[in-house]
C-alpha cells in the first residue's frame, strides 16, 4: 500500500464516520423494549431473555401466534400464551415425530430450533418461510430460546406459582365444538399441578365420531392412547391411534376408567363432565379436513 492509497482510505473513513455519526441508533425514549411507542397506562413486555415468559411475550405471542393460534393453528400447534408451553415441551412434532418440539436440555434435537434455523427435514423455515413481512428470527434471538431449552425449558414463573391454587384443569385443546381444519394430532388437557403419572394406567379413553342427529349416534370409535411427558407433568395428551377423518367428535373416558385424575399431592379433579348417558366427556370438536 502507498501513502496515496492510505490517504484515500483515510478520506473515505472520515466520510464514512461522518455518515455514521449522522445515523445514530435511537435513544429509545418513549418506547417499549420492542421499539413500539409506550401506551399510557399500558405495560410493556419484558426485554427478551432466556425464560419462557419473556420468550412468549416477545416471540411467540407477537410473531408466531399470528398463525399458530386457534382452531386453524398449523400442525395443531397453538402458541398463544395459554397453550404454547404445554403443546411444545415434551410433545413430539407432527412433521418429524421422532423429535420433540422442545426437548429440555437439548436444543439441537428440539424441533422448534431446527424450524427456526431453517434446517428441519420437513417444511419451510419459520416464521412461515420468512416472508418479507416477517423476516427470519436473528441468530441472537434464537439463542435465547436455545438457552431456555438448555436450562431445562422451565415454565413461566406464574405457572410454577400456581401450585398453591386448588388442583384444576386450565385448558383443553381442542374443545367446545371447535371446528379444526385438520385432524388434531392429540387432545391436550392442561393442569395447574404436576400429575401423578403412576395412576395413568387406570385411565383409558376413546374418540367417538357422531352422526348429526337430534340424539347423537356413535358411528365410529377410535381408541386413544394416553400419555404424560416426563418433560411436562402438567399436560395430559390423548392421541387417536389413527388419524381422524372429517366429522363431529367427542373424546370420552372409557366406562371402566376412573373419571378423576390426581396430582402428585393426591388432590383429585374430574377429567370431564358427565353427559346424559353418564359418560365422562373430555372434549368435543369438529374436524373439517380440507381436500
Amino acid at each position, binding site marked *: 500500500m502507498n501513502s496515496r492509497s492510505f490517504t484515500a482510505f483515510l478520506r473515505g473513513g472520515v466520510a464514512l464516520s461522518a455518515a455514521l455519526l449522522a445515523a*445514530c441508533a435511537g435513544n429509545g425514549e418513549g418506547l417499549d423494549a420492542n*421499539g413500539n411507542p409506550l401506551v399510557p397506562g399500558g405495560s410493556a413486555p419484558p426485554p427478551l431473555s432466556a425464560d419462557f415468559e419473556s420468550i412468549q411475550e416477545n416471540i411467540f405471542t407477537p410473531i408466531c401466534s399470528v398463525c399458530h393460534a386457534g382452531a386453524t393453528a398449523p400442525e395443531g400447534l397453538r402458541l398463544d400464551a395459554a397453550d404454547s408451553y404445554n403443546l411444545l415441551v415434551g410433545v413430539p412434532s407432527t412433521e418429524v415425530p421422532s423429535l420433540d418440539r422442545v426437548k429440555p436440555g437439548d436444543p439441537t434435537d428440539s424441533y422448534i430450533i431446527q424450524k427456526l434455523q431453517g434446517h428441519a427435514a420437513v417444511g419451510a423455515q419459520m416464521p412461515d418461510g420468512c416472508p418479507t413481512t416477517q423476516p427470519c428470527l436473528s441468530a441472537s434471538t434464537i439463542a435465547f430460546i436455545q438457552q431456555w431449552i438448555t436450562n431445562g425449558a422451565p415454565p413461566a414463573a406464574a405457572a410454577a406459582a400456581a401450585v398453591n391454587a386448588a388442583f384444576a384443569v386450565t385448558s383443553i385443546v381442542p374443545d367446545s365444538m371447535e371446528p379444526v381444519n385438520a385432524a388434531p394430532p392429540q387432545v391436550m388437557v392442561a393442569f395447574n399441578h404436576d400429575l401423578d403419572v403412576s395412576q395413568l394406567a387406570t385411565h383409558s379413553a376413546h374418540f367417538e365420531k357422531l352422526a348429526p342427529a337430534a340424539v347423537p349416534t356413535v358411528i365410529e370409535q377410535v381408541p386413544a392412547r394416553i400419555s404424560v411427558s416426563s418433560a411436562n407433568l402438567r399436560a395430559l395428551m390423548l392421541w387417536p391411534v389413527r388419524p381422524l377423518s372429517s366429522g363431529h367428535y367427542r373424546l370420552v373416558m372409557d366406562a371402566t376408567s376412573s373419571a378423576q385424575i390426581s396430582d402428585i399431592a393426591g388432590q383429585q379433579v374430574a377429567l370431564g363432565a358427565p353427559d346424559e348417558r353418564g359418560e365422562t366427556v373430555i372434549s368435543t370438536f369438529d374436524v373439517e379436513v380440507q381436500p
Partner: protein
Amino acid sequence: MIQRSLLAALILTIVALLRASPASAEPYLAVLEGYKCNVCHVNPTGGGLRNDFGLTYAKVLLPAETVDNTLDSWSGKLTDRLRIGGDLRADWSRETTPNSPSAQSFALEQFRVYADLTILPDRLGIYVDEQVAPNGSQNEEAYVRYGSTTDGFYLKGGQFYLPFGWRLQDQTAFVRQVTGINMTTPDKGVEIGYEHSAWSAEFDLTNGAANASTGSGYQVVTQVVYTKPIWRVGIAGSSTQSNAGDRHMGGLFAGLKTGPIAWLAEGDIVQDDSLERTMAAGLLEADWRLLKGHNLKLTAEYEDPDRAVRNNQETRYSLVYEYTPLPFLQVRAGYRHNFGIPQNNQEHGQLTFFELHGYF
C-alpha cells in the same frame, strides 16, 4: 509443488468436512475491477456459478498466490455443455448479548452446488442452484434461460433470486433483511433482462413471498444499473400485491473505486401495508485491497424499523478481514457490533466469527 498441492487439497477437504452460507457474491470485486456481474458469473444478475472468466479471476487475480496445474486447471466444465461449481462456508462464531450468556458454535452455514447446462450455445440453457447441506437438499434456483446474457435481451423462467440492490454475501445486512430480497429468498416467476454496453436492466414478475401459500397476488421487481469503469449507479423498485397487505419498495445503490478501495452504498425504503409502517435501511461499505489476496472490509448500516416512530433506529458496524491465500480458498475473520434502543439487549449484540470458504 506436489506437497503444496496436497496441502491445498487437504485444506479444501477439511473445509468440506466442516460446515458452510448463502451463495457467494462479492460486488466489491466488481466495483474494484469495473466489471458488470455477468463478467464473472453465469447468472447475469450475479452470484452463484462462475463462468470461464470468473474462474480465471478466482485462480489468478484474486488469491495471494497461485498453485500448481492441478488446481489451476479446474474449469468447472464436466463437458462442453455442462458446468458445475459450488460454495461451502464453515464458521465458528460467538454472539454476546448484554445480560445474557454468550453463545458460540461451529456451524456449517451452507454448502451449495451450481450447475449450468447449455442446450443451445449463447441462447438456451438451464441453471440450478441447490443447497445440499446442512440437513438435506433444498432448491434455491432452477430456471430456464433463453437469449443472450451478455448483449441483448434474455428471458428467465422458474425459480430465482430477485434483482434488488447490491447482491451481498451477507444476507443479514439490514438492506437485505428489510427488503426481504436476498439469496435465501428465491421466488417463482419470469424475468426479462437486458444487457448492453454499460447498461443492465431486469424486469421480474413473480408470486411474491407473501403470496407463497395463498396464491393471492404477485410481485413486480425492476432494476436498472449503469456501470462505468470506476463508478456505477443503480435504481430498483418492487411492488407486491397480496391479501396480507401490499408492499412497495424503492432503492438506490452506487459504487465507486478510489485507488485500491471500493465504496458501496445503498439506501432502501419499504412501505408495508400489512405491518402498517414504512421502513428504511442503508448501507455504506468500504473494501480496501491491501495486497493481492488481502481485503479489509468496513461496513456501517442503518435501519429505521418504523419511520413514524421516533428514537427507534438501529445501527450495525462490521470489520472483516478477508484473506485468500490460494485459489478457491478464503479465510475470513470479523467483528460486528449492533447498537439500538437501550431497553432492548438484542439490539446491542456483538458477533465475532472466523470463516473458511471453499469454492470452485
